[in-house]
């Protein structure tokens, strides 16, 4: 059972990674420690740390304005690429994608 679960997770992540333009994916746990990544160590750690605090701040902003609301997705568009952050109750999924042009 655990094995299949693991495979499902893997499969899902692979689907995302195989999408067009994706440079890297990072899976971060509740404390900000990267669990699984496709980029090099240094970049991963940096992304995990910075994006976690940013996501927390974004979420608190949303909830301050309306306590019934919650953050579902965060998209940061930079000059070079786009960073997608999907927070959920415990984990954080970070995807870095190159724009189409």
């Amino acid at each position: 059972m655990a094995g299949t679960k693991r495979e499902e997770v893997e499969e899902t992540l692979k689907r995302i990674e195989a999408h067009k333009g994706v440079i890297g994916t990072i899976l971060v746990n509740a404390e900000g420690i990267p669990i699984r990544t496709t980029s090099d160590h240094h970049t991963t750690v940096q992304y995990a740390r910075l994006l976690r605090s940013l996501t927390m701040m974004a979420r608190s902003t949303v909830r301050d304005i309306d306590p019934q609301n919650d953050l579902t997705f965060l998209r940061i568009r930079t000059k070079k690429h786009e960073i997608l952050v999907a927070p959920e109750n415990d984990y954080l999924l970070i995807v870095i994608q190159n724009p189409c042009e």
Partner: protein
Amino acid sequence: MPPRKPKSGKSSAGSKGKGKKIQTQMEKQDLELSNQDHPEYIFPMVLTSATQELFDCQADEDVTGESPYKLLEKDDIIQDIKTRAAVSDFSPVKQIVLDYPEDELLLVYDRDFTYGQSFYLVLTPEAKDRILNPPKPEIPEVFENEVVKTPEPKPWIPLGSDKEIDEEAFKESRKKLLYKFSRVRKKFGVPVCFSDRNTADAKDDYLECASYRDSRFSIKQLQRDCGIQAVPRLQSSSAQTQWKFQKNIFTQYTPRELSVEEKENILHLENLKNFCNSVTPRVLQALQQEGIMNVFFDDWKALGSAAEDGDWAGKVSEGLMLHQAFTDQKYTKDKKICSINWHPTIYGVIAVALTDKKKEQLNESVVRASFILFYTFADPSNPQLLLECPDDIFAFEFCPSDPNIIVGGCVNGQVVLWDISAHVTCLQGTQPGKKVSVNTDVCDFNQDLDDSKEHKTPIVRYCAVSALESSHKAPITDVQWLPTTFEVTRTGLPVENMYNISSQLVTCSPDCTIMFWDVRVSKPMSHSASEMRPNTDQKTPYSTPDTFKHLDRTWKPLFKVFLPKIDTSGEYAPLKFNLEHYNCNDNTGRNTEANENGDSSKVIPDYSQLSVPLAQTLNALEDVNTKLYIGTEDGEIIYTDWKLGKDDSGRMQSAKPLHCFSIHHWLVNTVQRSPFFKDIILTMGSWNFAIWKEGVMDGPIILSASSEQVCTVGCWSLSRPAVFFIGKEDGSIEVWNLLVKTSEPVQVHSNVTNAKITCIKPWTASSKQHFLAVTDDIGMVRVFEIPKTLYVPSRSESLNVKKYFELEEDRLKDFLRREELWEIQKKKAEDLKKRTELDKPVNSLVENEEVNMKEYNDYLMLEESVLKGMGLWQAPAYTQDT
């Protein structure tokens, strides 16, 4: 008054008597008239001078303008009237005078004739009074009225409010009672003793004065309105609060990490799966959105940037503009230019190689000096530097890592090296902004072959030539340096380039070989080279640099690559080739260090000290593309690998070329890689050109139609991926833009020169200056400026071009696939046809006969019926009669 009758009076009276009548008549008239314009009490009249004397009212004597009033006695007037009766002046007013109540009448001298006559009589006493005593004018009694009086207090009139106030007021109804209590004097000072006593113990010990309702009188409790104001008590006070929130802060020096097992554990958790399931759709949607379109794309801005605003100040030239033309009478006579190169670092310096037009050598003994000329922009008619060549040079190149090293390929197959480091200042001195005087000083140092008094062009002799026996057997048509990123070993294996310098080059020649050379000292040869060195020293009288002394005349190639034909025996004769420049992506520490050291001042290595490293010491680079595209004499394009492989006998042999395409019909004159795409190659043959993609082995992805003129040379534009230039035999230049038209050029500049164009080379001097150097058959070099339309790439041009190439590639593949399909179909159709043809003739014969019989029978019946109708029917013997 006694009447006096002076003479004058008489005369006047006399005259006046007559006049009087008239006057009295006039007075009467006047009376009537004057009734209208004077008040009633005024009676204007004329008084004769006699009357005037009589009454002492002579004009201007007794009465004047200032005191015009004269009182006349009534009696006098009456007497006068009686005396003179009708003659009297007063006769008209006789009645009035008689009636006049008072005794005196007022006569007023009317100086101004206000009432028509010189005198007037006031008829009423009131008027007299009024005139005499005019009422005093009213002096405005302002002052008295305007004295401000302090308002006196008016006595107060009570309207009933005082009663209310009385009611409300609190007055004592009786005098206050005063009770005075005091102790008996004798008890003062007595010591006191206190004791406890409980009130609850003795009920009667205290006296209660309870309140009770006294029935004798009742105090009615009145309700009284009372005003109250609650005033808040204000008090100044201060407090101090902390400004900042206390927050937990922590710092971390190393990031926290999980061990592998922990990660594994987490990956197996259920909630991770849930998380993934819930998050994935969102992420995929976002990714897809990104792929669909770019929402942040600013169309407006992009529109503006594509139009390239700003610089279009009037003249917009669409075509190539002639910037400068270079020629030299002395050296370029009867010569054509075979090769041209821009100096890689110095601005505006072009080097051209001149070769004889006539192919046969007239006299072998007469060595005609051949030169490579250096022109600069500053001096278009004189070359700045000459490189002496042992023979005509067909191709030459600057070394990419050291622009002072030039290698050239001779017509006799030798490879020649020059070092112009001593004379670089000549070229640099002619840069804009630098003084020319410095230039001439340096140039004077060199000895010249030709002593021209005006102007000494320095000549540099070559420092090294290759060994004659090991060189090519035919003229070298193409020379290329290997880039600084890799080098090759003796077997053709690409290895790391330790020093990041270009020290190897490749030459090709129609003797069917491609040779790799190394400019460094090769170890086994070092001994013989050192022996040979003193000999060469004596031989060369001129001052030549010692850079390549180790190579002179003993230079041998590293290895040779042969080009055996694929299908048949024999070999290809290459004319031009092209190799892929390798960019090392991973900058290892060593490379970057070397770069940092050498960046500020280019470390020009001493080539004689460098030696070819052993193959084993260097790391092999796996991903270098070792394949060459070669264009041959017969118009074929060959794709081959230069690595030597071992054949059956164990010797190193060149591999057979991988592919060969016979696309062009004659000599291939250009094989050039696109500066933007590593795998796109432009080849040009005599009448058409083709674009190839490396990796597509089926043929060129684009093949142009044959043109009328022979294409002599072509080159890619350095700044636009879709643009390239073609030079033609009639001296015209065509500009092609693949994104605009693919079947014909975008621009044709005809008659750029009268002769055949031999070379075209573009150069980007700065971001605004793009030059195109064009050389021709008569030795002239023309430098054109490329207009902005041709050097500024259009928006996402490289992407569009890439797409176009991919499209062409797909088309080619599709075409080939279809060709195969058609072949198969054709075969099938043929087989089918063969089979069906055998059956056909039998069937058709039978069918035809049946049809014929039927027609004949019908005809017989028709004949029968017709003849019967006519009564001529003769029954045939064998038929029955009806």
